[in-house]
Protein backbone atom coordinates (compact mmCIF):
# COMPACT_ATOMS: atom_id res chain seq x y z
CA UNK A 1 0.00 0.00 0.00
CA UNK A 2 0.93 3.66 -0.22
CA UNK A 3 2.18 4.98 3.11
CA UNK A 4 2.48 8.53 4.37
CA UNK A 5 3.47 10.41 7.51
CA UNK A 6 1.85 13.52 8.87
CA UNK A 7 3.75 16.76 8.48
CA UNK A 8 4.79 18.61 11.65
CA UNK A 9 2.06 20.94 12.95
CA UNK A 10 4.16 24.08 12.39
CA UNK A 11 4.55 23.26 8.70
CA UNK A 12 0.81 22.62 8.37
CA UNK A 13 0.03 25.93 10.08
CA UNK A 14 2.33 27.72 7.66
CA UNK A 15 0.56 26.11 4.68
CA UNK A 16 -2.84 27.13 6.02
CA UNK A 17 -1.75 30.72 6.65
CA UNK A 18 -4.51 33.12 7.65
CA UNK A 19 -7.36 31.24 5.96
CA UNK A 20 -10.55 31.22 8.01
CA UNK A 21 -12.46 28.17 6.81
CA UNK A 22 -10.33 25.08 6.88
CA UNK A 23 -11.39 21.61 5.82
CA UNK A 24 -9.24 18.65 6.80
CA UNK A 25 -9.93 15.96 4.22
CA UNK A 26 -8.88 12.44 5.09
CA UNK A 27 -8.82 9.44 2.79
CA UNK A 28 -10.15 6.13 4.01
CA UNK A 29 -7.98 3.87 1.85
CA UNK A 30 -4.16 3.48 2.06
CA UNK A 31 -3.44 6.38 4.44
CA UNK A 32 -6.19 5.18 6.78
CA UNK A 33 -4.67 1.70 6.87
CA UNK A 34 -1.26 3.17 7.73
CA UNK A 35 -2.94 5.20 10.51
CA UNK A 36 -1.90 8.56 9.09
CA UNK A 37 -4.71 10.19 7.16
CA UNK A 38 -8.02 8.41 7.62
CA UNK A 39 -11.13 10.00 9.08
CA UNK A 40 -9.88 9.44 12.65
CA UNK A 41 -6.60 11.22 11.98
CA UNK A 42 -8.40 14.00 10.09
CA UNK A 43 -10.57 14.57 13.15
CA UNK A 44 -7.49 14.70 15.39
CA UNK A 45 -5.75 17.25 13.15
CA UNK A 46 -8.92 19.36 12.96
CA UNK A 47 -9.13 19.35 16.76
CA UNK A 48 -5.45 20.35 17.02
CA UNK A 49 -5.98 23.23 14.58
CA UNK A 50 -8.97 24.47 16.58
CA UNK A 51 -6.98 24.31 19.82
CA UNK A 52 -4.09 26.22 18.23
CA UNK A 53 -6.40 28.90 16.82
CA UNK A 54 -8.14 29.29 20.18
CA UNK A 55 -4.77 29.65 21.91
CA UNK A 56 -3.75 32.39 19.50
CA UNK A 57 -7.15 34.08 19.57
CA UNK A 58 -7.78 33.52 15.87
CA UNK A 59 -11.35 32.93 14.73
CA UNK A 60 -11.30 29.97 12.36
CA UNK A 61 -13.75 27.27 11.38
CA UNK A 62 -12.14 23.87 11.11
CA UNK A 63 -14.11 20.90 9.89
CA UNK A 64 -13.09 17.43 8.88
CA UNK A 65 -14.32 14.89 6.39
CA UNK A 66 -13.01 11.84 4.57
CA UNK A 67 -13.43 10.43 1.09
CA UNK A 68 -13.57 6.69 0.67
CA UNK A 69 -10.77 7.21 -1.87
CA UNK A 70 -9.43 10.65 -2.75
CA UNK A 71 -7.71 9.42 -5.92
CA UNK A 72 -10.94 8.75 -7.83
CA UNK A 73 -13.28 11.39 -9.22
CA UNK A 74 -16.46 9.59 -8.17
CA UNK A 75 -15.54 9.51 -4.50
CA UNK A 76 -14.62 13.20 -4.55
CA UNK A 77 -18.19 14.04 -5.59
CA UNK A 78 -19.32 12.71 -2.23
CA UNK A 79 -17.39 15.38 -0.30
CA UNK A 80 -17.75 18.16 -2.90
CA UNK A 81 -20.11 20.31 -0.87
CA UNK A 82 -17.76 20.63 2.10
CA UNK A 83 -14.81 21.30 -0.20
CA UNK A 84 -16.63 24.10 -2.03
CA UNK A 85 -17.33 25.86 1.28
CA UNK A 86 -13.71 25.82 2.50
CA UNK A 87 -11.09 28.53 1.98
CA UNK A 88 -8.37 25.91 2.11
CA UNK A 89 -8.46 22.13 2.08
CA UNK A 90 -5.81 20.24 4.02
CA UNK A 91 -5.63 16.87 2.37
CA UNK A 92 -4.33 13.92 4.35
CA UNK A 93 -4.36 11.60 1.35
CA UNK A 94 -1.25 10.41 -0.48
CA UNK A 95 0.20 12.63 -3.20
CA UNK A 96 -2.18 11.07 -5.71
CA UNK A 97 -5.27 11.89 -3.68
CA UNK A 98 -4.09 15.43 -2.93
CA UNK A 99 -3.54 16.10 -6.63
CA UNK A 100 -6.87 14.57 -7.66
CA UNK A 101 -8.62 16.83 -5.18
CA UNK A 102 -6.64 19.90 -6.29
CA UNK A 103 -7.39 19.14 -9.94
CA UNK A 104 -11.09 18.46 -9.54
CA UNK A 105 -11.75 21.55 -7.47
CA UNK A 106 -9.20 23.91 -9.10
CA UNK A 107 -8.48 26.69 -8.35
CA UNK A 108 -9.42 25.76 -4.76
CA UNK A 109 -6.41 25.97 -2.46
CA UNK A 110 -5.46 22.39 -1.55
CA UNK A 111 -2.50 21.78 0.77
CA UNK A 112 -0.77 18.55 1.79
CA UNK A 113 -0.94 17.66 5.47
CA UNK A 114 1.18 14.54 4.98
CA UNK A 115 4.40 13.48 3.30
CA UNK A 116 3.83 10.43 1.09
CA UNK A 117 6.84 8.24 1.62
CA UNK A 118 6.70 4.77 0.13
CA UNK A 119 4.97 1.71 -1.23
CA UNK A 120 5.26 -0.43 1.81
CA UNK A 121 3.88 -3.42 3.64
CA UNK A 122 2.96 -3.73 7.30
CA UNK A 123 5.70 -5.97 8.70
CA UNK A 124 3.81 -6.01 11.99
CA UNK A 125 1.07 -3.82 13.44
CA UNK A 126 2.17 -0.17 13.10
CA UNK A 127 5.47 -0.96 11.32
CA UNK A 128 5.82 -0.52 7.55
CA UNK A 129 8.69 -1.48 5.32
CA UNK A 130 9.36 -0.32 1.77
CA UNK A 131 8.82 -3.09 -0.72
CA UNK A 132 8.35 -1.60 -4.19
CA UNK A 133 9.77 1.35 -6.11
CA UNK A 134 7.26 1.17 -8.98
CA UNK A 135 10.26 1.07 -11.34
CA UNK A 136 8.17 -0.11 -14.28
CA UNK A 137 10.26 -3.22 -15.01
CA UNK A 138 10.06 -5.82 -12.28
CA UNK A 139 13.15 -7.99 -11.75
CA UNK A 140 12.17 -9.97 -8.68
CA UNK A 141 11.62 -13.10 -10.75
CA UNK A 142 15.42 -13.34 -10.92
CA UNK A 143 16.06 -12.13 -7.39
CA UNK A 144 14.06 -14.66 -5.41
CA UNK A 145 11.11 -12.33 -4.83
CA UNK A 146 13.25 -9.68 -3.12
CA UNK A 147 13.38 -6.24 -4.74
CA UNK A 148 16.95 -4.95 -5.14
CA UNK A 149 15.65 -1.58 -6.38
CA UNK A 150 14.28 -0.46 -3.01
CA UNK A 151 15.64 -3.02 -0.57
CA UNK A 152 19.28 -2.53 -1.56
CA UNK A 153 20.38 0.90 -0.30
CA UNK A 154 22.29 1.43 -3.55
CA UNK A 155 19.66 -0.18 -5.83
CA UNK A 156 22.39 -2.46 -7.14
CA UNK A 157 21.42 -4.88 -9.89
CA UNK A 158 24.60 -6.93 -9.33
CA UNK A 159 25.05 -7.11 -5.60
CA UNK A 160 26.13 -7.43 -2.94
CA UNK A 161 28.63 -4.59 -2.61
CA UNK A 162 31.57 -4.50 -0.22
CA UNK A 163 29.39 -2.92 2.44
CA UNK A 164 27.52 -6.13 3.20
CA UNK A 165 28.51 -7.56 6.60
CA UNK A 166 26.89 -10.57 8.25
CA UNK A 167 23.77 -10.03 6.18
CA UNK A 168 23.49 -6.36 7.16
CA UNK A 169 23.87 -3.22 5.07
CA UNK A 170 26.59 -0.68 5.82
CA UNK A 171 24.04 2.12 5.52
CA UNK A 172 23.01 2.97 9.07
CA UNK A 173 21.42 6.11 10.39
CA UNK A 174 19.58 6.67 13.67
CA UNK A 175 16.29 6.22 11.76
CA UNK A 176 17.43 3.27 9.70
CA UNK A 177 19.14 0.89 12.04
CA UNK A 178 19.83 -2.64 11.13
CA UNK A 179 18.94 -2.78 7.44
CA UNK A 180 19.14 -6.25 5.97
CA UNK A 181 21.39 -6.51 2.94
CA UNK A 182 18.93 -7.25 0.13
CA UNK A 183 21.55 -9.19 -1.80
CA UNK A 184 22.38 -11.37 1.21
CA UNK A 185 18.65 -12.14 1.49
CA UNK A 186 18.53 -12.85 -2.26
CA UNK A 187 21.50 -15.21 -2.00
CA UNK A 188 20.00 -17.14 0.92
CA UNK A 189 16.64 -17.53 -0.78
CA UNK A 190 18.16 -18.45 -4.17
CA UNK A 191 20.13 -21.18 -2.37
CA UNK A 192 16.95 -22.43 -0.71
CA UNK A 193 15.32 -22.51 -4.14
CA UNK A 194 18.29 -24.25 -5.70
CA UNK A 195 18.78 -21.39 -8.14
CA UNK A 196 22.22 -20.12 -7.02
CA UNK A 197 23.34 -19.74 -10.62
CA UNK A 198 21.13 -16.63 -10.92
CA UNK A 199 23.50 -14.89 -8.52
CA UNK A 200 26.27 -15.09 -11.11
CA UNK A 201 24.28 -13.66 -14.01
CA UNK A 202 25.66 -10.29 -15.04
CA UNK A 203 22.73 -7.89 -15.29
CA UNK A 204 23.14 -4.90 -17.61
CA UNK A 205 22.28 -1.41 -16.36
CA UNK A 206 18.58 -1.11 -15.62
CA UNK A 207 16.41 0.85 -18.02
CA UNK A 208 15.32 3.66 -15.74
CA UNK A 209 13.30 5.34 -18.50
CA UNK A 210 10.48 3.01 -17.49
CA UNK A 211 10.65 4.48 -14.00
CA UNK A 212 9.91 8.11 -13.14
CA UNK A 213 13.20 9.07 -14.87
CA UNK A 214 11.36 8.63 -18.19
CA UNK A 215 8.89 11.41 -17.40
CA UNK A 216 5.31 11.12 -16.12
CA UNK A 217 3.94 7.69 -16.90
CA UNK A 218 0.57 6.91 -18.38
CA UNK A 219 -1.24 3.62 -18.61
CA UNK A 220 -4.16 2.97 -20.95
CA UNK A 221 -6.13 -0.25 -21.15
CA UNK A 222 -7.91 0.04 -24.47
CA UNK A 223 -9.94 -3.13 -23.93
CA UNK A 224 -11.40 -1.69 -20.75
CA UNK A 225 -12.17 1.84 -21.93
CA UNK A 226 -15.87 2.70 -22.00
CA UNK A 227 -17.47 2.37 -25.41
Amino acid at each position, binding site marked *: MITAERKPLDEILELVGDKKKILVAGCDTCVAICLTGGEKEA*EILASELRIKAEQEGRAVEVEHTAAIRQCEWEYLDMIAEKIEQADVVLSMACGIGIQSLAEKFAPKLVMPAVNTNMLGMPQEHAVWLERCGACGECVIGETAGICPVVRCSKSLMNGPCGGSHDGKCEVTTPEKEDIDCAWALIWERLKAQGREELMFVNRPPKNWSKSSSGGPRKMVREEAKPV
Partner: protein
Amino acid sequence: MAVPEAAEAAAPKKFVDPDFEPEIIVFACHYCAYAAADLAGSMRLQYPTNIRMIKLPCTGKLEVIHLLRAIEAGADGVYAAGCMEGECHYLKGNLWARKRVDHVKDLLAELGIEPERVEMFNMSSAMGAKFAEVATEFTELIKQLGPNPVKREGVSPHAAAREALGGVAMPDQAESSVAVTVEEGHAE
Protein backbone atom coordinates in the same frame (compact mmCIF):
# COMPACT_ATOMS: atom_id res chain seq x y z
CA MET B 1 25.44 36.53 36.00
CA ALA B 2 24.64 33.75 33.59
CA VAL B 3 24.30 31.13 36.31
CA PRO B 4 21.42 32.65 38.32
CA GLU B 5 19.61 33.46 35.07
CA ALA B 6 19.85 29.86 33.93
CA ALA B 7 18.67 28.63 37.33
CA GLU B 8 15.70 30.95 37.12
CA ALA B 9 14.85 29.74 33.63
CA ALA B 10 15.02 26.11 34.75
CA ALA B 11 12.49 26.66 37.53
CA PRO B 12 10.06 29.35 36.42
CA LYS B 13 7.83 30.61 39.18
CA LYS B 14 4.22 29.80 38.45
CA PHE B 15 1.52 32.21 39.45
CA VAL B 16 -0.94 30.17 41.42
CA ASP B 17 -4.40 31.67 41.66
CA PRO B 18 -5.87 30.52 45.00
CA ASP B 19 -9.39 30.79 43.56
CA PHE B 20 -8.68 28.64 40.52
CA GLU B 21 -10.81 25.50 40.60
CA PRO B 22 -9.80 23.29 37.68
CA GLU B 23 -12.22 21.09 35.79
CA ILE B 24 -10.75 17.64 35.40
CA ILE B 25 -12.18 14.87 33.27
CA VAL B 26 -11.56 11.31 34.41
CA PHE B 27 -12.11 8.41 32.08
CA ALA B 28 -12.63 5.58 34.50
CA CYS B 29 -12.69 1.87 33.78
CA HIS B 30 -15.88 0.18 34.95
CA TYR B 31 -13.94 -2.75 36.43
CA CYS B 32 -11.42 -0.89 38.55
CA ALA B 33 -11.22 2.90 38.90
CA TYR B 34 -14.96 3.42 38.88
CA ALA B 35 -15.39 0.78 41.56
CA ALA B 36 -12.40 2.27 43.44
CA ALA B 37 -14.21 5.62 43.42
CA ASP B 38 -17.24 3.90 44.87
CA LEU B 39 -15.08 2.36 47.56
CA ALA B 40 -13.47 5.73 48.32
CA GLY B 41 -16.99 7.04 48.85
CA SER B 42 -17.93 4.14 51.13
CA MET B 43 -14.71 4.66 53.08
CA ARG B 44 -15.69 8.32 53.51
CA LEU B 45 -12.41 9.41 51.93
CA GLN B 46 -12.22 13.01 50.83
CA TYR B 47 -11.11 13.89 47.33
CA PRO B 48 -11.50 17.12 45.35
CA THR B 49 -14.82 17.86 43.70
CA ASN B 50 -12.94 19.09 40.63
CA ILE B 51 -13.03 15.72 38.94
CA ARG B 52 -15.82 14.74 36.57
CA MET B 53 -16.00 11.03 35.91
CA ILE B 54 -16.98 9.25 32.74
CA LYS B 55 -17.35 5.50 33.01
CA LEU B 56 -15.97 3.32 30.23
CA PRO B 57 -16.24 -0.45 29.79
CA CYS B 58 -12.41 -0.43 29.57
CA THR B 59 -9.81 2.32 29.13
CA GLY B 60 -8.91 0.50 25.91
CA LYS B 61 -12.02 2.10 24.41
CA LEU B 62 -10.43 5.49 24.91
CA GLU B 63 -9.13 7.07 21.72
CA VAL B 64 -6.83 9.99 21.07
CA ILE B 65 -9.70 12.18 19.89
CA HIS B 66 -11.66 11.65 23.13
CA LEU B 67 -8.81 13.05 25.21
CA LEU B 68 -8.18 15.84 22.73
CA ARG B 69 -11.85 16.83 22.62
CA ALA B 70 -11.89 17.27 26.39
CA ILE B 71 -8.85 19.57 26.15
CA GLU B 72 -10.37 21.41 23.19
CA ALA B 73 -13.52 22.00 25.22
CA GLY B 74 -11.41 23.56 27.98
CA ALA B 75 -10.75 20.74 30.44
CA ASP B 76 -7.83 21.86 32.62
CA GLY B 77 -6.71 18.28 33.09
CA VAL B 78 -7.70 14.87 31.80
CA TYR B 79 -6.74 11.45 33.03
CA ALA B 80 -7.57 7.88 32.33
CA ALA B 81 -7.77 5.48 35.25
CA GLY B 82 -7.50 1.84 34.28
CA CYS B 83 -6.73 -1.47 35.89
CA MET B 84 -3.30 -2.44 37.19
CA GLU B 85 -1.00 -3.46 34.34
CA GLY B 86 -1.49 -7.15 33.67
CA GLU B 87 -4.92 -7.10 35.32
CA CYS B 88 -7.05 -5.67 32.49
CA HIS B 89 -10.38 -7.45 32.15
CA TYR B 90 -9.83 -7.30 28.38
CA LEU B 91 -6.14 -8.22 28.72
CA LYS B 92 -4.42 -5.19 27.21
CA GLY B 93 -6.93 -2.32 27.16
CA ASN B 94 -5.07 -0.35 29.82
CA LEU B 95 -1.77 -0.77 27.96
CA TRP B 96 -3.35 0.63 24.79
CA ALA B 97 -4.79 3.49 26.80
CA ARG B 98 -1.34 4.39 28.14
CA LYS B 99 0.07 4.52 24.62
CA ARG B 100 -2.77 6.78 23.48
CA VAL B 101 -2.32 9.06 26.48
CA ASP B 102 1.39 9.28 25.66
CA HIS B 103 0.53 10.19 22.06
CA VAL B 104 -1.80 12.96 23.25
CA LYS B 105 1.06 14.25 25.42
CA ASP B 106 3.13 14.56 22.22
CA LEU B 107 0.29 16.36 20.44
CA LEU B 108 -0.10 18.79 23.34
CA ALA B 109 3.64 19.48 23.36
CA GLU B 110 3.39 20.23 19.63
CA LEU B 111 0.59 22.69 20.44
CA GLY B 112 2.59 24.37 23.21
CA ILE B 113 0.31 23.07 25.98
CA GLU B 114 1.77 21.32 29.04
CA PRO B 115 1.74 17.54 28.38
CA GLU B 116 1.26 17.01 32.14
CA ARG B 117 -2.38 17.99 31.70
CA VAL B 118 -3.04 14.48 30.40
CA GLU B 119 -2.13 11.41 32.41
CA MET B 120 -2.74 7.70 32.82
CA PHE B 121 -3.10 5.99 36.20
CA ASN B 122 -3.54 2.36 37.18
CA MET B 123 -5.45 1.06 40.17
CA SER B 124 -7.57 -1.88 41.22
CA SER B 125 -11.16 -1.83 42.44
CA ALA B 126 -9.86 -2.38 45.98
CA MET B 127 -7.79 0.79 45.92
CA GLY B 128 -10.23 3.38 47.19
CA ALA B 129 -7.45 5.24 48.97
CA LYS B 130 -5.33 5.31 45.81
CA PHE B 131 -8.27 6.73 43.85
CA ALA B 132 -8.63 9.59 46.33
CA GLU B 133 -4.86 10.13 46.40
CA VAL B 134 -4.57 10.29 42.59
CA ALA B 135 -7.53 12.69 42.36
CA THR B 136 -6.01 14.92 45.02
CA GLU B 137 -2.48 14.94 43.63
CA PHE B 138 -3.57 15.45 40.02
CA THR B 139 -5.88 18.31 41.00
CA GLU B 140 -2.99 19.89 42.90
CA LEU B 141 -0.72 19.56 39.85
CA ILE B 142 -3.32 21.18 37.58
CA LYS B 143 -3.77 24.00 40.08
CA GLN B 144 -0.02 24.61 39.79
CA LEU B 145 -0.23 24.62 35.98
CA GLY B 146 -3.14 27.06 35.95
CA PRO B 147 -6.12 27.10 33.60
CA ASN B 148 -6.12 25.42 30.20
CA PRO B 149 -5.20 28.19 27.72
CA VAL B 150 -8.14 27.29 25.48
CA LYS B 151 -10.80 27.52 28.17
CA ARG B 152 -14.05 29.08 26.96
CA GLU B 153 -17.13 30.30 28.77
CA GLY B 154 -20.22 28.17 28.38
CA VAL B 155 -18.45 25.08 27.02
CA SER B 156 -18.62 21.96 29.15
CA PRO B 157 -15.59 19.68 28.78
CA HIS B 158 -17.52 16.87 30.44
CA ALA B 159 -20.37 17.14 27.94
CA ALA B 160 -17.92 17.44 25.03
CA ALA B 161 -15.98 14.36 26.13
CA ARG B 162 -19.21 12.38 26.59
CA GLU B 163 -20.40 13.48 23.16
CA ALA B 164 -17.09 12.50 21.55
CA LEU B 165 -17.36 9.07 23.16
CA GLY B 166 -20.88 8.56 21.84
CA GLY B 167 -22.19 5.17 22.86
CA VAL B 168 -18.87 4.15 24.40
CA ALA B 169 -19.46 6.07 27.64
CA MET B 170 -21.47 4.01 30.12
CA PRO B 171 -24.40 5.36 32.11
CA ASP B 172 -23.81 6.39 35.71
CA GLN B 173 -23.99 3.89 38.57
CA ALA B 174 -27.72 4.06 39.36
CA GLU B 175 -28.71 3.51 35.73
CA SER B 176 -26.17 0.75 35.08
CA SER B 177 -26.96 -1.63 37.95
CA VAL B 178 -28.94 -3.91 35.64
CA ALA B 179 -26.12 -4.11 33.11
CA VAL B 180 -23.59 -4.98 35.83
CA THR B 181 -25.77 -7.81 37.10
CA VAL B 182 -26.00 -9.28 33.61
CA GLU B 183 -22.20 -9.17 33.15
CA GLU B 184 -21.63 -10.82 36.52
CA GLY B 185 -24.03 -13.53 35.47
CA HIS B 186 -21.84 -14.16 32.41
CA ALA B 187 -18.72 -14.38 34.51
CA GLU B 188 -20.20 -17.24 36.49
